[in-house]
């Protein structure tokens, strides 16, 4: 077994990349965000390691959310979301567990807590889990989600977005984030996206639309590469 030096694999978060919290006008962040600063600790073995063969516990599927197991099609604009899971040195991360969830085309989640007056789609659950391949690639077939309002004081609309949860090789590379769509004016007004201070960092959360010649005619294509923390920390495939 190759012995990786555990120190220096993980740079601290660069400035402006982490969301600044709590978020003004977003009450929940004021009720949950710790008031005390977290204690900084060095990177040690217990942070760089993570579960081997996690897909044995978190069972992965084929990533097709657009068609049910009995062949029924969800309502909406069909799209393929795909990309590469990478570390900070652009090395592909194989065997990452990638979880995705999203609203339906009308902007409603198939979740008991979502009581918004918008139709549910019986053929769209809106979540899936896949494992990245030996070159770090993942893909989902789904539909484009709708926008939805956040019913707080000074309410605003969340632009269309997709939630991602990624479990890479170490607990330090754990990432939960959201993907946005290019050219949506609501991106500029979204308090969640704009809690990320650095403009380049916000742009990295916006997927790239595929050219029609590459996307084909079956579905729109959006590429979204997911870079996890960890320089040179990716285990060999």
């Amino acid at each position, binding site marked *: 077994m190759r012995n990786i030096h555990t120190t220096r694999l993980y740079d601290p978060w660069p400035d402006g990349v982490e969301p600044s919290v709590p978020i003004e006008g977003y009450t929940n962040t004021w009720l949950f965000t710790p008031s005390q600063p977290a204690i900084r600790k060095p990177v040690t073995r217990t942070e760089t390691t993570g579960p081997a063969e996690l897909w044995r516990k978190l069972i992965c599927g084929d990533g097709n959310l657009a068609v049910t197991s009995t062949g029924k099609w969800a309502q909406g604009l069909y799209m393929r979301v795909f990309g590469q899971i990478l570390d900070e040195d652009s090395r592909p991360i194989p065997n990452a567990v990638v979880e995705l*969830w999203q609203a339906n085309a009308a902007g409603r989640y198939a979740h008991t807590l*979502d009581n918004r007056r918008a139709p549910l789609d019986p053929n769209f659950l809106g979540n899936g889990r896949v494992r990245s391949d030996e070159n770090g690639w993942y893909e989902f077939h789904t539909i484009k989600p709708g926008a939805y309002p956040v019913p707080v004081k000074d309410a605003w609309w969340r632009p269309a977005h997709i939630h991602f949860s990624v479990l890479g090789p170490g607990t330090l590379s754990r990432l939960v984030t959201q993907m946005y769509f290019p050219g949506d004016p609501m991106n500029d007004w979204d308090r969640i996206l704009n809690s990320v201070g650095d403009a380049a960092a916000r742009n990295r959360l916006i997927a790239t639309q595929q050219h029609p010649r590459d996307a084909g005619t079956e579905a729109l294509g959006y590429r979204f590469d997911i*870079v996890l923390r960890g320089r040179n920390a990716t285990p060999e495939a």
Partner: protein
Amino acid sequence: MTYNPENRRFPLSQHTIGPFFPPGFFQPGDNDLTRYSADATPTEQGEVFILHGNVCKEGRLPVPNMILEMWQADANGRFRSECDPEGDQADPDFIAWGRSWTTMEGDYSFRSVLPGSYEEDGQRRAPHLNVLLMGIGLMKPVTTTLYFPQFAELNAKDPILNLVPEHQRDRLLVQPDGEVDGVPAYRFDILTRGPADEETIFFET
């Protein structure tokens, strides 16, 4: 591969999981670290225990639908990873990772085996549990490390626990809490936001 500045990429920013994390992502056995999957044979190494408690927000109000993830060493203090020099000797039946989901009352639980202590860079690490918490209102996950009161001598020398001001270290100890299903139980309640001397102590790296 050696470091090449031209290949440098920035990690994506973190965002909240929001209120709609899919219930289907949580299956029976996910909070059991002692086995790879619900139908796998549990590890035979180590002392089984239950860790349970609740998660509260400002005002000590319990919160449902919070997600906790736990990661730890095996009973002999090894991680099944290339980042552990003894990783190839780690317990192959122990996944060492689990996910729990708080109930309507804000309660979570994990089943695991007592982690071992180990040596790293000439220092001895006390047995510890790494817990990550995410949910509505948390724009990024928060993480903490929990210790066991029965290992007082090891705790006193643990380099990470020693980063915490001395009078606060006890607040990262799990509390013995009788038995659940015939195995020893420990309790640890989490308060994400509250008075400074009651709020859970979190770490960042």
